[in-house]
């Protein structure tokens, strides 16, 4: 597992600057640490991590400007998990996640403009402005949603896995949740049922050390969350959630295990969120030193350093990617800003899949 040595620059940690610093890193690494991933894939990983980072920085601005309402949970610091995990699976494998879902949506291929429009509550959003930040989804990409009741989606993934098994699709389900969710009953019901039915599910626990503000030790008697899997006789592994390549390696093995029909697999990704739980979090529960220590492991400059060190890209190329990503996100913000809000006439649409007709009681409830 490669250790990040480069430091993020101040404030926004722009990759072009950190890339320059990284080039000065004296340490040599084995190309094998990149797990045989081709240059194109490695650069895509870099671009995707950067896209999440820039997207969320702009989202935070939108929140400060009150263009985004409700809750906004940023993934900044954890980008390597979504990127690594999704590269470890097929593009059409099923994905269901918690509410910190921007990164997964973007890596799965949702249009950044439509994702931003969803945050803005616009008609052009990925779910038409009905779900917001916590409920992004695109069923056509087998992305079955961000879910905001902690743990509630975990056993849904097991059912989705059973359906893959019965219909012999050869697909697996990536079921993403945080460390806090491992305390709730539905997590345990899901682990139990998945193992009984040998459902092809990769349980991916993003351990960012805090369930909102409560430390893991306050919530769990086991220190290593992989140990949770033991109670279900389920194979499990940890990965470095600050490293997309290590996450890729472990999730890929877990996915192939499930795909071979050998049942579910539990992965614990060790990671850290650099920002508060949500935009409303004053972060009283952790020290500045701790945050500083983890920011030193920022996955983006660390990965940039490895790319330059191995000659996969030079600073110029990384700068170019950064510029392209920034442009893409600025365009996404513009798209969201210029998009119309949902039409009030659609407010009762999609309440039921079977239309109840114009005289139906559900319609008669509309008293404009």
């Amino acid at each position, binding site marked *: 597992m490669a250790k990040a040595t480069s430091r993020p620059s101040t404030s926004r940690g722009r990759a072009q600057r950190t890339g320059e610093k990284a080039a000065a890193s004296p340490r040599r690494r084995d190309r094998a640490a990149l797990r045989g991933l081709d240059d194109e894939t490695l650069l895509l990983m870099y671009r995707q991590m950067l896209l999440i980072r820039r997207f969320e920085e702009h989202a935070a601005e939108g929140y400060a400007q009150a263009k985004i309402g409700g809750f906004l949970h940023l993934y900044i610091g954890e980008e390597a998990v979504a990127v690594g995990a999704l590269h470890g699976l097929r593009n059409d494998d*099923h994905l269901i996640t918690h509410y910190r879902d921007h990164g997964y949506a973007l890596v799965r291929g949702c249009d950044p403009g439509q994702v931003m429009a969803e945050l803005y509550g616009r008609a052009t959003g990925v*779910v*038409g402005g*009905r*779900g917001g930040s916590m*409920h992004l*989804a*695109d*069923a*056509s990409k087998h992305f*079955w*949603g961000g*879910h905001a*009741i902690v743990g*509630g*989606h*975990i*056993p*849904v*993934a*097991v*059912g*989705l*896995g*059973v*359906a*893959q098994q*019965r*219909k012999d699709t050869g697909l697996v389900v990536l079921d993403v949740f945080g460390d806090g969710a491992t305390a709730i*009953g*539905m997590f345990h*019901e*899901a682990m*139990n*049922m998945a193992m*009984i*039915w040998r459902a092809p599910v990769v349980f991916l626990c993003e351990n960012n050390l805090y369930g909102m503000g409560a430390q893991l030790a306050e919530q769990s008697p086991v220190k290593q969350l992989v140990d949770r899997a033991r109670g279900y006789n389920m194979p499990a592994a940890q990965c470095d959630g600050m490293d997309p390549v290590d996450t890729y390696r472990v999730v890929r093995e877990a996915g192939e295990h499930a795909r071979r029909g050998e049942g579910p697999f539990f992965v614990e990704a060790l990671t850290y969120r650099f920002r508060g739980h949500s935009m409303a979090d004053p972060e009283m529960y952790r020290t500045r030193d701790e945050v500083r220590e983890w920011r030193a492991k920022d996955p983006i400059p660390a990965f940039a350093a490895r790319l330059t060190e191995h000659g996969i890209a030079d600073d110029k190329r990384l700068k170019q990617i950064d510029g392209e990503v920034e442009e893409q996100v600025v365009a996404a913000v513009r798209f969201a800003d210029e998009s119309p809000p949902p039409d009030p006439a659609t407010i009762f*649409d*999609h*309440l*039921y*899949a*079977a239309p*109840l007709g114009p*005289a*139906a*009681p*559900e319609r*008669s409830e509309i008293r404009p």
Partner: protein
Amino acid sequence: MTVEISYREALHQALREEMQRDGDVVLLGEDITGYGGSYAVTKGLHEEFGLDRVMETPIAEAGIVATAIGMSMGGMRPVAELMTVNFALLALDQIVNNAAKFHYMFNGQWSVPIVVRTVSGFGQLAATHSQTFEGWFASVPGLKVVMPATPADAKGLLKTAIRDPDPVIFIEHSLLYSKRGAVPEGDDHLVPIGEAAVVREGGDVTIVAYSRMLLEALAAAEELSAEGVECEVVDLRTLRPLDVDTIVQSVAHTHRAVVCGEDWRTGGFGATLAAEVQDRCFDVLDAPVARVAMADVPLPYARNLERLLIPTAHSVTEAVRSLLSIGGRS
């Protein structure tokens, strides 16, 4: 042509026929295979269809409903059995936050075609095993709530529920399983969701009931008829979407209404019914809408105490008589 079968057999036939018709229909629940289901509705189906289609689950109500939801997203048509409606509380989050929300919240990208079969009822089972919560479920937009009273409706509505693209909460009644009734022959008997039925005509009072209370309402109507009072009895069959029009049409010519349920008076489904009738029929009502409901107390175990609380035909006749004493009955 009809055939006389029990409510239990009607449900069993509905499950069996739909499983034969559609290979995606699967059953899952606690003790539904070897044990046969706690009310024996699924008895023998695992032998006919195999354990892949009649799935035994651990005791995990939230997990049962959640996995049913996931299976439906993967193209299956799961019918989840929750042993009693009391245990359905453990799955409330899945029913309310997931099953009822996905279609709307994800902008119609997919629906959740599941049926959650469960059972209300009582019989010296004490406070935690004698409840009924249809009013709670019926208050949730996105759910459909069905409570059949007769074998014919039990069969026809369950078959429709299985084919329906939305989540259906299908509440059976433990005291109805052995009741027999005429059911149309053949495997194409379907009863639409969202349609009430006028099961007895009369011009003096409208009695609105569903599930076991329909039988009590019909017994009350029979008794009152001997006294010269003719009741019109409406069987709701579906609580959501509610067929308000059928109730309104009946009250328009009877001018009086009694609404019946076994759930608690405060916040029970009867409260919604009474409000709807009052709202839609205020100008034609000759008396306030009367309620027959459970008193607001947990059901005690002792036989005599339980009997004091359970709504019966007698509760309905009393309600009708008190209504008739109000206003100018000609």
